[in-house]
């Protein structure tokens, strides 16, 4: 197994009275995608900012490619690419110019930048839009351009903060395809996301954060197997809440959220047969997924940041 290229050890950060990051440790290896999921205020963005040396930790270490952060962050950033949650493309420049200007920030020679631009435009499926400005692009195109821009220095590690938020399904799938391509090339990715299908598709390993603390870590399938029952039956409709009391014994765990009831169980057939007797409900039967894991570990309360 190759050595980790990125490592966080026992990171702590407090803002005022709020312990935003509480003893966080993680490692990323080349070719690996590590996902960090957590509710609002869990400390994901602060962690990323500490990885980039934009905020200093109270204690703990951040190390990228063997270089300590923030002391040698400038050197480390030469091998890191960042895609932020909100695009920060230059609105006055075309796609090609955006790439060129950004390449200069890394001190790359002109010839290198010129050679990479057409390849990155192709990677981002924006060859036809080389002269278009970001304002003329759709949301998905802008996000792909941001990803292309993050690759101008051919980084070994990518930090992506919610990369497909706000994109339609086609755009999301295209982004995922590209990210999987990058992983195959041997690049490493640290990804934060709220989309559990994204986490399940892309991530080799997942970290679940809540209140700055790591509350679960493992592969997506492994975490589901470890923490959850295999199946879920969701019940909606006027009679839904009544079924919760009536059939609670047929499931390992029952939760109610508003007017919906969630049955978590390993043998769904008896419950499904029982529910078929009711005519004032609709049911949805599906395998347990990361969203269920997330809600189980972090609860259903809305978090105000």
């Amino acid at each position: 197994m190759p050595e980790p290229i990125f490592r966080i050890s026992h990171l702590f950060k407090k803002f005022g009275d709020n312990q935003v990051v509480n003893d966080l440790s993680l490692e990323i290896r080349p070719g690996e995608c590590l996902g960090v999921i957590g509710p609002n205020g869990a400390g994901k963005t602060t962690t990323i900012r500490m990885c980039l040396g934009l905020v200093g930790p109270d204690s703990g270490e951040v190390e990228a490619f063997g270089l300590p952060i923030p002391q040698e962050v400038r050197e480390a950033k030469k091998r890191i690419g960042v895609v932020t949650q909100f695009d920060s493309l230059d609105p006055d420049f075309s796609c090609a110019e955006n790439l060129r200007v950004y390449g200069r920030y890394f001190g790359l020679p002109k010839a290198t930048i010129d050679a990479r631009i057409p390849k990155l435009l192709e990677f981002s499926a924006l060859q036809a839009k080389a002269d278009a400005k970001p304002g003329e692009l759709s949301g998905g195109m802008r996000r792909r351009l941001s990803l292309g821009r993050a690759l101008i220095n051919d980084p070994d590690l990518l930090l992506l903060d919610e990369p497909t938020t706000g994109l339609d399904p086609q755009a999301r799938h295209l982004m995922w395809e590209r990210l999987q391509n990058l992983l195959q090339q041997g690049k490493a990715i640290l990804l934060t996301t709220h989309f559990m299908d994204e986490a399940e598709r892309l991530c080799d390993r997942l970290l679940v954060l809540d209140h700055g603390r790591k509350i679960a870590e493992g592969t997506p399938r492994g975490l589901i197997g470890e923490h959850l029952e295999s199946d879920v039956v969701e019940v909606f409709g006027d009679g839904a809440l009544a079924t919760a009391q009536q059939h609670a014994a047929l499931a390992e765990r029952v939760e109610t959220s508003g007017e919906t009831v969630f049955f978590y169980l390993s043998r769904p057939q008896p419950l499904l047969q029982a529910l078929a007797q009711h005519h004032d409900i609709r049911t949805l039967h599906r395998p347990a997924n990361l969203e269920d894991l997330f809600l189980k570990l972090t609860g259903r309360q809305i978090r105000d940041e």
Partner: protein
Amino acid sequence: MLISFYAAPRITARFWPVVLRNLLVWRKLAVPSVLGNIAEPLITLVAFGYGLGSMIGQVQGLPYIEYLASGSIAVSGALAATFEALYSAYSRMQVQRTWDSIMNAPIALDDIVFAEMLWAAMKSVFTVAAIMAVIFVLGISRAPTMLLALPLLCFVGVTFASIALVFNALAQGYDFFTYYFTLVMTPMTFLSGVYFPIEQMPGWLQAIAHVLPLTAAVDLVRPLILGQWPQQVWGPMLVLAAYALGGYYLALVLTRRRFFK
């Protein structure tokens, strides 16, 4: 741990791509930009210089148009640098998040602030060069010493950009800058000996005028534009340098706090 906000500036050669970026954006809009910057000064020059000037006798031994033009070019430079270091810098910093994206690359905030200051000074040089060309063409002055005024006006640009960046660091919106123009720049323009000699003002206002950077700028620039040597060189230069260095350092400290607190 992160380095203290109060540490000395740490600038590397990496500031240059940031200046270059701003220059490239400007180039796309160069003509309207320069025209915008010189339109008002020229109109003022014509209205007050020729209009008012034909009713006024000589001011300090000079025709009013010459007195006015040689002073107002310093104001135009100061205003151009100020505008760029306020509205444009704020747009890049806060609205477009350009500074954030640059800091994801191996460029530090210290480099960016330095680049923005330098760029605002460059914008001011483009403006005053255009005004100088007009002064030449209109025959207001054709003195060769005008060329010496250019590097000096660059220094003036640096000074005013540095001061303005302090307010950029503190701003929470564009409206904040209105206060700066109304309460600082406009009064300064009238108190610095541009439109009339300082000696016309009551003693206490003269005392204030003598510590204003714009007065120092006018005292240095006016003679050079008109083919003379400034009476006092080191005094005004020191005033400008003090504002430039003090302003730049304060802007840097405040900008660091804004980003890294």
